[in-house]
């Protein structure tokens, strides 16, 4: 019996986006979609988080922040890249300061498509991430609490 899928806490970070996907992530927490009914809480603190929701591409300034935030999260953890910019850099990918998608810096588990991603597809992405989270937890438990 695993409890990690019943209580995934989310940290949300906006890399270098137009802010559209951010608004959609926050829309997921409103009464209409109410993510908390799945036990999902937006913590804003990497040390409490299980799911890293990241929107927007990565630029030279946000690279270190994303890496640091990811490293601070205790295992098991999953990364969900929300929106096309987080996947590839999107319309900004040719900009001089953009490195590309989130996978340039940290490993991504789930890509949520869309510009901007719809709240329904973000919720769908998080639910898929929970399956991966459970796999990682089982693997961790097999190795006696060590990752990998």
């Amino acid at each position, binding site marked *: 019996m695993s409890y990690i899928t019943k209580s995934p806490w989310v940290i949300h970070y906006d890399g270098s986006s137009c802010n559209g996907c951010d608004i959609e992530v926050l829309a997921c927490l409103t009464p209409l979609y109410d993510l908390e*009914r799945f*036990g999902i809480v937006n913590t804003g603190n990497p040390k409490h988080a299980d799911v890293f929701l990241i929107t927007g591409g990565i630029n030279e300034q946000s690279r270190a922040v994303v890496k640091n935030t990811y490293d601070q999260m*205790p*295992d*098991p953890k999953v990364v969900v890249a929300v929106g096309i910019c987080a996947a590839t850099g999107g319309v900004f990918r040719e900009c001089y300061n953009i490195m590309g998608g989130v996978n340039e810096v940290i490993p991504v588990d789930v890509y949520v498509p869309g510009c901007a991603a719809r709240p329904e597809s973000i919720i769908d992405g998080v639910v898929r991430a929970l399956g991966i989270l459970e796999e990682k937890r089982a693997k961790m438990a097999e190795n006696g609490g060590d990752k990998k």
Partner: protein
Amino acid sequence: MITGIPFEILFAIGFVILAPFIGAFIVGIDRKVTARKQGRVGPPVLQPLYDIFKLFEKEKVVVTNEVNFYILSHLIFVVFTGALFFSGGDILLVIFALTLAHVFLILGAYAAVSPYSHVGAGRELLQLMAVEPMLIIAAAGFYMVTESFAVKDIVLSPGLPVMTIPLIFVGIVFVLTIKLRKSPFDLATSHHAHQELVEGLTTEFAGPTLGMVEIAHLYETVFLLGIVWLFFASASMPWIGVLAVIIVYFLEILVDNTTTRVRWQVMLRSAWLVALVAGAVNLGVLALM
């Protein structure tokens, strides 16, 4: 009747085993009611238990090893506080044990080197300062009514203590908001998403360490509601106290949902003012009678 040593030990053991589950149920109802008030469905009632079980599935990440020692001490002393209270012990010792428990939590937050947890720890100290006078006055009030500091004697004394010390009851309900970490006094850390301090006091606690803080909070919730019950303590009609506890807790949820966080100055001044007015008037009248 609550007499004889075996019964006291039974109550203490009962608290240690049952309090986390009762506390989780109370917090779960709290989250559900809060969600309904905001027009949401809300998480399952057992969500606080899922959260804690999950935290123990996570990797042990800690900034310095002292943190684990302080947080474990915090948990042990919160359990000790509640067990002492429910076994009918000395209410002054109960209050001091609770203070010691919170000092350990503050030391834990200071040991984790981080600006957020340092500011959270500073605010927790201020919350402790704000609450302490009212708790001591309440203990004095109980003594003047029943001529004993022992919780057991207070429960067995005839009549409801709240009839003689109503103002002190109001004061305790006021500081209860601070103790339960509810808005407008959730300065040190908050259960709600995002605040200006990230998560304040608990920012640097992760996984099992945070789990211990959460379990301690469940024990503390049950203990604090036990103090509310004590004002309506009556050996023949315990349900009056239970009814009072339910009403007080729903009032806390209402206040939590309708107010915004205040600055620490406002919290400290208002808590001390309430303690001074409620305590001086109520104890003064009792002394003159």
